[in-house]
């Protein structure tokens, strides 16, 4: 389990007595791009929350970047981008610069103070993502696409080894969505960042991911994307046209 970016064994998790995940076992190697998909209520978001420590599992083992999750403290090595902010307030008085800077807190111990190296990291990330020109803008004034880009910058400001994305483009138009995924793909290829992408969109997984995890409370398939395309699981899930719908790499 030590060499993997993420390793999960016999995971069981749920809420208030109901079971969201059972006997989930899989691992992700460093540098992989894993697409996680499955029907509504299949436990995709629960899996993400368990990985990030937001939900306590009922049983099972989780190893993050070689460390058991319960003792994992180096959150700067992990970037997280949710579908949207939990209770986003469009009038929240934070600038783009302030929001991205918040991402640097995960690398700090008490009392968390920002220094010159944090300013430089924020500048570098904004320049790389092409959002330097909006640094002084308020987060609530931005379009959905730009706001997600800023939150992605927040997730990337520590140059994480593992990036977790939970349905990050749900509210975006197709064009913005495409440029967003290209950016993630670039990061995976150029920086070797391990990517975990939760999405309903199997076509996106087909286009960018190297591996696929199909979840329906338990693991239905986990492995190489091309292997999935030739598997009986794929035909069982998507029918005889599945090859064209899911596996056609554009």
């Amino acid at each position, binding site marked *: 389990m030590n060499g993997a970016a993420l390793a999960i064994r016999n995971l069981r998790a749920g809420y208030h007595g109901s079971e969201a995940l059972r006997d989930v076992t899989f691992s992700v190697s460093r540098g992989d791009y894993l697409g996680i998909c499955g029907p509504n209520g299949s436990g995709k978001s629960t899996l993400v929350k368990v990985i990030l420590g937001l939900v306590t599992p009922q049983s099972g083992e989780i190893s993050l970047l070689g460390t058991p999750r319960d003792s994992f403290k180096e959150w700067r090595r992990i970037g997280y981008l949710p579908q949207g902010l939990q209770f986003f307030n469009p*009038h929240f*008085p934070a*600038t783009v610069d*302030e929001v991205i800077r*918040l991402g640097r*807190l995960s690398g700090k111990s008490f009392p968390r103070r*920002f220094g010159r190296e944090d300013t430089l990291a924020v500048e570098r990330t904004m320049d790389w993502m092409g959002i330097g020109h909006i640094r002084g803008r308020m987060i609530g004034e931005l379009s959905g696409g730009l706001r997600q880009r800023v939150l992605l910058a927040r997730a990337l400001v520590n140059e994480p080894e593992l990036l977790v994305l939970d349905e990050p483009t749900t509210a975006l138009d197709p064009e913005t969505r495409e440029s967003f995924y290209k950016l993630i793909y670039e990061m995976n290829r150029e920086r070797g960042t391990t990517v975990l992408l939760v999405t309903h969109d199997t076509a996106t997984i087909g286009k960018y991911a190297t591996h696929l995890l199909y979840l329906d409370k338990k693991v239905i398939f986990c492995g190489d994307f091309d292997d999935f395309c030739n598997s009986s699981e794929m035909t069982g899930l998507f029918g005889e046209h599945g090859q064209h719908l899911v596996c056609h790499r554009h």
Partner: protein
Amino acid sequence: MNITEMLSFGFMQRALVGGSLIAILCSVLGVFLVLRRLSLIGDGLSHVTFGSVALALLFRLHSFYMTLAIIPLVLASSLGILKLAERARIYGDAAIGIVSALGVATGVMLASMAGGFNIDLFSYLFGNILSISSSELAIAAVLFVIVISGVAIFYNDLFASTFDEELAKTSGIDTGRINAILVLLTALTVVLAMKVVGIMLISALLILPAVTALQLSKGFRTAIISSAFIGVCTVVVGISVSFVMNLPTGATIVLVNFVTFLCAFAARTLLRRR
């Protein structure tokens, strides 16, 4: 009466200094509370303060000891609100409502046992900053240092948790502990603010400067600084106007705050139209 003459009175000097310190605390904490939709926690805790004051009056405590005696009660209640929301699986506003009602009911019961509402209890209900003594000012100064240091030390954690609690957790921030720190600091501030505007109007001092600052602020740090500035200005103007025009101080401070809010709201609307 001119300003020099007004400032020559010792009680006015104490009122202005004490009022300004308390205004800074309320305004700074207010920004976090308003953005976290916890504005009414001030109201709930002030009702607990009412019950605690009634208890202290029942034992005929001097006003100096009164503040010290009610602090632990209000601190415990603030944590009670958090625990109730967490353990009883109810929303925060319902937990505030329960603790608030309990505070008022206890206060009324104790006041009744003490022979009914008296002048002392009324002075706590509506505040009387002009009567603040040197020893009370000293307590206010000590609590000011404690609360403002708490905010300064945990500023980034408070900011991150206020922006998005889930994201803050994934940054390794113990949001449960930060929430507890915020309500404890608020509880201390509420006890202090009761002297300025009274139990009935404390939430106004926590909410109004913050929402006024949020109308025009361009950034989180500027919102905090603007809120503190607005809080101090409105308290100083409120105390001065009430003294000159012989009006109730707490109510005057709240009305000055409301007028300031209206001006900021109008300015924002005009700026948006341009």
